């Protein structure tokens, strides 16, 4: 029997047993569909987390103050100390080649403008911040060196802060905002980085670092130093150089007692990725169980079919069907069922993903690999669960099969 004949016979059988084939296929559709939905939700979550982390900077290394140890047993929280200074930032910038350095000093303040007000993050920083932290300007300009040197009262608003103060999408450049007791002139609006909720990078106001130190916070310390390594490969060595430099500058001989800590973007990405990967695997394996149930459904239907079609099998054998013809016929039916089920599952999954992305706002991603894998898996399920019924059919004796009532 040729391959074409085999397909033709299979489709003929399906078209004569639409309801049953359809219901059996449904088991596979649901199984396959849920596996890919879970995988695509997981991959989507992973991609969005990576995007968010990428958005905080390029090859970013963040130096933060460590716990303050002012002699004695008590230790302040990590990041609370005032051990990092502008001078540390300048030293990193001048002594480590190829890096860009953006120290920053953050606080939260109530900000008002023409009767509206909001509580937002104020970031005092320097012009290099745009490169180090991947910030782009939407309108106006970012802080310049001159403004920083002269402690100008200028402010660059994040889009969320702008929306809160001046209304969504309003042109705010040239307007004034009051931060604490000082009045700042708005000189620019940054482009949205996306993100929402607690740690929204768009809900921020950038002012010159020196202005921050003079008018809002006092002192010359900084709350963190962002360092952008020249390439991803250089990150480890840059991180080591910063550690050595700061240990030396802070006169600390034992690295375990360092009064600062260094985070690097790669570590954050890999930690976050491994979490989402585990979640994806968990979701997919739960969905895999429904696929298994679907496969058992296929086997059940095929066994029923073999019993029901015993006389047909006997007839086919008596007119010259070989064992292999019979077993191929039944295998082809089960593989075709799972294959079609897989295809429908993928199509349904596409629709569900679009719904998820639009309604829940959760990004999903269907990768080519997962589609190919699904087809392979569904064909495999067809073979595995169709093999036993097919073999049973092929081994029927033609005489017994013909006599079967």
């Amino acid at each position, binding site marked *: *029997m*040729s391959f*074409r*004949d085999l397909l033709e*016979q299979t489709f*003929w059988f399906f078209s*004569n047993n639409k309801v049953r084939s359809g219901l059996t296929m449904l088991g596979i559709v649901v199984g396959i569909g849920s596996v890919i939905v879970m995988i695509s939700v997981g991959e989507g979550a992973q991609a969005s987390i990576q995007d968010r982390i990428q958005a905080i900077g390029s090859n970013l290394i963040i130096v933060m103050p460590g716990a303050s140890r002012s002699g004695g047993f008590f230790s302040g929280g990590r990041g609370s100390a005032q051990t990092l200074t502008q001078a540390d930032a300048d030293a990193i910038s001048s002594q480590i080649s190829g890096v860009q350095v953006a120290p920053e000093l953050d606080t939260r303040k109530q900000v008002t403008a023409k009767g509206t007000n909001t509580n937002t993050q104020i970031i005092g920083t320097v012009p290099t911040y745009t490169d180090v932290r991947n910030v782009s300007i939407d309108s106006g300009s970012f802080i310049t060196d001159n403004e920083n040197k002269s402690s100008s009262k200028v402010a660059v608003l994040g889009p969320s802060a702008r929306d809160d103060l001046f209304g969504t999408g309003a042109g705010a450049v040239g307007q004034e905002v009051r931060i604490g007791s000082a009045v700042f002139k708005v000189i620019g609006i940054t482009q949205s980085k996306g993100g929402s909720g607690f740690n929204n990078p768009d809900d921020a106001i950038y002012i010159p670092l020196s202005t921050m130190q003079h008018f809002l916070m006092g002192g010359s310390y900084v709350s963190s130093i962002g360092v952008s390594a020249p390439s991803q490969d250089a990150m480890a060595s840059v991180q080591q150089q910063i550690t050595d430099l700061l240990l030396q500058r802070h006169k600390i001989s034992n690295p375990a007692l360092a009064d600062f800590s260094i985070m690097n973007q790669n570590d954050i990405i890999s930690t976050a990725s491994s979490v989402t990967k585990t979640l994806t695997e968990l979701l997919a394996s739960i969905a895999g169980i429904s696929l298994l149930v679907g496969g058992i459904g296929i086997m059940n239907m095929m066994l029923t079919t073999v019993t029901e079609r015993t*006389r*047909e099998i*006997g*007839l*086919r*054998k*008596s*007119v*010259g*069907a*070989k*064992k*292999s*013809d019979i077993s191929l016929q039944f295998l082809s039916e089960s593989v075709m069922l799972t294959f079609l089920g897989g295809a429908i599952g993928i199509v349904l999954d596409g629709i569900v993903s679009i719904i998820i992305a639009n309604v829940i706002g959760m990004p999903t991603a269907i990768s080519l690999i997962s589609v190919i894998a699904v087809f392979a898996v569904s064909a495999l399920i067809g073979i595995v669960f169709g093999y036993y019924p097919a073999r049973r059919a092929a081994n029927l004796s*033609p*005489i017994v099969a*013909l006599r079967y009532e």
Partner: protein
Amino acid sequence: MIECIEITKKYVSGDTETVALAGVSFSINEDEFVAIIGPSGSGKSTLMHILGALDIPTSGQFLLEGQDVADLDDDELADLRNRKIGFVFQSFNLLPRANVIRNVTLPLLYSKVPPGRREELAREALVKTGLGEDSFNKRSNQLSGGQQQRVAIARALVTNPSLILADEPTGNLDSKTEKVVMQTFQQMHSEGRTIVLITHEAEIAAYAQRVITMRDGRLVDDRLNGDAGKTGKPSQDTVATAEAEKEMSA
């Protein structure tokens, strides 16, 4: 054409051994129309399975066109059935949801006939059985019993086999369609095909040229039917003999 030498067939189930055939020898020449007659349990169905290469004898030899079927494996037996033997069954055994053409082309699926020629061959075979062309695209379960059996005969003919084996082909038919079907067999015979017909009815056997009678797994009678097979009428001779035998055994 067919040569059976001391064929026995035993079935073992548990401790009991059933002897279905206890040493049967005969031969059938090309172009013969032979009826094998006997009551149920006489071993005629078992004999038919062996003649149809569906089963292999426990001992003895069955030669089909000089080939000992015991030497063939499963696939070769399937191939032999496909090329040389056409079956006609009592219960027709058509695929109920398939149309007439699909039913008749079924054996060609397992042959080397290219797909393009199959329908043509099926139509030729159907025309020979006298089934009206308007039925060719009907589903087989929409046809009458007589029409169904003619479709089944066309299916047996479509591979152009040298041997047609019919097992009670008129068992499910009324006497009028029975006559039509038997005349179809006679016509096939007159076209030079070997036909072996299994029946328990003397009236049906009377259409054949030669009648082999079986009882208890043995061949008890083998005689020619005189003028039967030419006139299209049962030979009175055979009917009388069969009835006489019935009375004797009663």
